[in-house]
């Protein structure tokens, strides 16, 4: 798995809810954010939860992705707010810049 994104890239979190474990919080599903920091390879928890060891499970690049409150909560959030989460590469898709 390569490092598909660079700092400053616009990304969209994946929309589907997987059958197994994920560390993509539901409130951040299908939301547009910006890659802020790249942390290198980390074991993918989705595989680890199925019993994969650190060597047999997938390793993916981990990013800090920052989201604007209005993007996350739509009209339910009035206050200016930024929320970030640390997300694995396969949780993200490229998003055309606006």
């Amino acid at each position, binding site marked *: 798995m390569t490092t598909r994104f660079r700092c400053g890239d616009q990304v969209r979190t994946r929309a589907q809810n997987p059958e197994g474990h994920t*560390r*993509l*919080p539901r*409130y*951040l599903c299908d939301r547009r954010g910006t890659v802020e920091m790249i*942390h290198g390879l*980390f074991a993918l*928890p989705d595989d680890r939860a199925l019993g994969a060891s650190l060597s047999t499970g997938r390793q993916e690049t*981990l990013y*800090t992705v*920052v989201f604007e*409150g209005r993007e*996350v*909560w739509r009209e*339910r*959030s009035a*206050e*200016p*707010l*930024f*929320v*970030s*989460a*640390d*997300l*694995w590469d396969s949780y993200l898709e490229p998003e055309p810049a606006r």
Partner: protein
Amino acid sequence: MSHHHDDDHDHGEHRESASMASRVGALIAKLEAKGILSEAELDAAVEAFLMNTQHAGGPALVARAWIDQPFRARLLADANAALDELGIDMSHWAKVKLRAVENTERVHNVIVCTLCSCYPVSLLGPSPTWYKSLAYRSRVVREPRAVLAEFGLQLDSSIDVRVWDSTAELRYIVLPRRPADTDGMKETDLAALVTRDALIGTGVCATVQRG
């Protein structure tokens, strides 16, 4: 109506913690029965864990950053290297990557783990119960100003709130702003001003009001 909702919520949490306690008890009994773990080993592990948290290094880290600008820069760039400089060990079960995030006059940072209760125990000490509560975890990412106000922290509207959700093997610590009236204070006295809540971002550092 909202009172009724709160009642339901409380019952749910109690049920969850009771069931967790019985599951932990069952797991320990199985581990002992199979000879994988003895009660003495378990006690020793818990004691080592708690001893580590009694020497929480967070306040010392912040005080050094307040008085030593090059150290502050190193802390923000590579927090684990800064910990090594002070001889603070934050690994417990495994090596953990730390990131320090700095409060400024423009940005106030708050830490949460919405998925469970991830928390840099060896830097901050044992986590408070509210940090693990569904109320804190679900509300602070949505209405942080209201949550902070309930902690007694009124933020100026010109300050942006940035919430860090600890969803991976990274831990966060807030580098609070140094109180204005602390020029010339000793490092150990400065460290005493650094509260747990300031390191989570639900508080700020202030000198003790006298008189």
